């Protein structure tokens, strides 16, 4: 039981980095704006702002889902393939017919959920490492796509293309949907029992098990939700393309999403972080892209800068956490050590399930 208490105390610690991430976002924006200004341009024109938001929405969907699995100390390398499959399924199901939009969205998200379910079951029940499970799942989907489709197929009705192409002022509809999803997931993580259990399982699966949480359920849920957000990303892509294109799996979305999550301050070893930070991480990457574009940076230099900035930012976070947990300095290792500091956080430690004690006892 003491573990549950300490887990809830960690609630504060786990959101502590979010502030830092937003500071980083502001710094990135200010530095970028100055830099662009020095080059004789302006970063915050309406055009650039639209561009920045548009770039953030796709990655946003993928990264929100990825945050959930990473919180559970899992990983999903199949999201790019799921998104690619989803573009095809959506475009073929809708077949250009506005009356089939709901059906198309339903089938796409349903199939994505099913893939997530398989990922989750293989990881928890067959005990295959998430890295291998989702890498394998990606290969399976890739093989199916390459065999079944010889290029773009299907058609998205104009009404649904609005999702990807229209905007309200400077805010694209897709970004609004992405932000709404982010809020929903934040509420889910804070208010629902499963959400709380995700932190607990990621924080320490053994302890979570001892305190009566079945670790399988949150992990499976996270994978289902992650695949569904990848499905949503696929829907967005399809609506922007007007058709399905399976080759989008080549774009390396999975690694970009993981980078966004980690930039957002979520601890790669699970248990700490959150979606609010991820959204900031996504905006940091989108800002960089917009700046690179405004300045016509050589595409290869872009990769170099992106790599360097991601490493540097994560190193700075690690340092920030590091000083707070200076005790741990003696034991260097890969990840940032978790900070045990921070006062107990009042919000939402959900009451343990009634059967908790009994379950814990049997183990």
């Amino acid at each position: 039981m003491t573990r549950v208490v300490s887990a809830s105390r960690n609630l504060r610690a786990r959101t502590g980095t979010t502030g830092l991430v937003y500071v980083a976002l502001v710094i990135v924006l200010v530095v970028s704006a100055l830099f662009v200004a020095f080059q004789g341009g302006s970063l915050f024109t309406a055009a650039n702002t639209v561009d920045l938001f548009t770039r953030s929405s796709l990655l946003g969907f993928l990264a929100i889902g990825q945050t959930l699995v990473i919180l559970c100390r899992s990983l999903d390398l199949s999201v790019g393939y799921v998104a690619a499959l989803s573009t095809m399924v959506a475009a073929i199901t809708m077949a250009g017919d506005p009356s089939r939009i709901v059906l198309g969205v339903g089938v796409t998200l349903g199939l994505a959920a099913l893939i997530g379910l398989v990922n989750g079951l293989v990881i928890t029940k067959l005990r295959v490492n998430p890295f291998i499970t989702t890498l394998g799942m990606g290969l399976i989907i890739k093989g199916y796509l390459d065999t079944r489709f010889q290029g773009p197929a299907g058609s998205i009705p104009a009404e649904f293309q609005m999702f990807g192409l229209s905007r309200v002022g400077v805010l694209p509809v897709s970004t609004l949907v992405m932000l709404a999803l982010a809020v929903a997931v934040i509420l889910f993580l804070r208010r629902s029992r499963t959400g709380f259990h995700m932190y607990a399982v990621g924080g320490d699966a053994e302890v979570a098990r001892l305190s009566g949480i079945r670790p399988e359920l949150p992990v499976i849920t996270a994978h289902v939700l992650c695949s569904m957000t990848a499905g949503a990303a696929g829907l967005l892509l399809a609506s922007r393309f007007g058709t399905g294109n399976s080759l989008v799996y080549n774009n390396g979305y999975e690694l970009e999403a993981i980078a966004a999550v980690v930039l957002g301050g979520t601890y790669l070893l699970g248990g700490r972080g959150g979606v609010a930070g991820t959204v900031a991480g996504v905006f940091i990457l989108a800002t960089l892209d917009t700046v690179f574009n405004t300045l016509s940076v050589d595409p290869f230099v872009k990769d170099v800068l992106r790599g360097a900035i991601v490493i540097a930012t994560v190193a700075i976070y690690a340092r920030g956490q590091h000083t707070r947990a200076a005790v741990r300095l003696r034991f260097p290792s890969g990840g940032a050590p978790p900070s045990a500091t921070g006062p107990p956080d009042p919000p939402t430690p959900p009451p343990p399930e009634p059967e908790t004690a009994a379950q814990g006892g049997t183990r």
Partner: protein
Amino acid sequence: MRASRVLLAGAAGLTLILSACTTDAPEDPDGASADGENGGELTPDAEWFDQAEFDAQLAQRDIEPEGPADEPWMQAIEPEWVDTADFAIDDPEDAHVCFSNASVSNPWRVTGFITMEQQVEALVDEGRIGSFDSSDAADDDNQQISDIQAFVDSGNCDAIIISPSTTATLTPAVETACESGVPVVVFDRGVNSDCMVTFIHPIGGYAYGADAADFLVENLDPGSTVLALRILPGVDVLEHRWAAAQEIFGDSELDVLGFEFTEGDGAQIKDLVSQHLQRGEVNGIWMDAGDGAVAGLEAFEDAGQPYPVIAGEDELSFMRKWDEEGLTAIGPVYSNFQWRTPVIAAGMILAGEEVPAEWILPQEPVREDDLDEYLDRNSDMPSLHYAKFGGEDLPGFPEAWVDR
């Protein structure tokens, strides 16, 4: 516990057996199977084969193009000239031309983009355009849609040039660009729309694939074996090449062993060819792009087998190998000089000059007879440079292409 263990072992075994079974399975109806026995019945994929377009492209190979013979990038096959007076601006020397590039992710595109930049330099010097801006989408369709949108929203572009990464998916974005009122020039891959002022491209994929396949048919005895090496599925320009080859091989006496996807990676090409050589003779190699051709030829060397009849590309390492070893070969060309034309066209449009609505550039393979000439012209150029890049008269030649 035990049961699931057995189950898993079964699953692994089953997968292997299932894989094994495909050998005996009947030919895949859509022709996607690489089964060697059915080479004679090859039929191209309906999805990528358009008989009318195929016939048109093959005919275009023999049509004398209009325009100066020593400037193939200015030539056009059966052009339909359109008036561009509406797009003319008063001060073209200040015009800002924007270019949304799909990527520079392969040597062909790298070579072409250098040529384009040098052409821009020439046009700026001549006062035909003022400045040039490009964005690179790194083969990401979604990124390119954003890139085009950004150009449109910025309102700074007097003309927008687009090299789409995928035909179908970029169509809405190109239409958006057209609606913004500035002249749009599309080149290389097309889009499913004719809203642009001009669409510039060489004859096309069918002609490319047919040049290569015809050469193999002519130079190999009936019954000879041919292996097709392809880069990846689902890309229209590449699929057209293969569809044309299937059509031609299907009518021939050649035995097509199958096709392999290589992702253009030399190690994979060499390994796949070596494996085919272990199982029997390979007399001919058909490739949908030639930048790994040398690795494929080395597999023959290492296996101690005679060189095949090969269709590569106008890529220099292949052409040099061809010359050194005296191969029976052809270098089909997907005219790299097409990268000059779009910026020239943009300048013409902004000056109100007529341009062809569809600007079809000539596309002539490199054959034995002109091999020496092209090797000579490109003697300073590095490997992975394309012989028909057509930039010899541009500023910065040859340094810009030599020191990349």
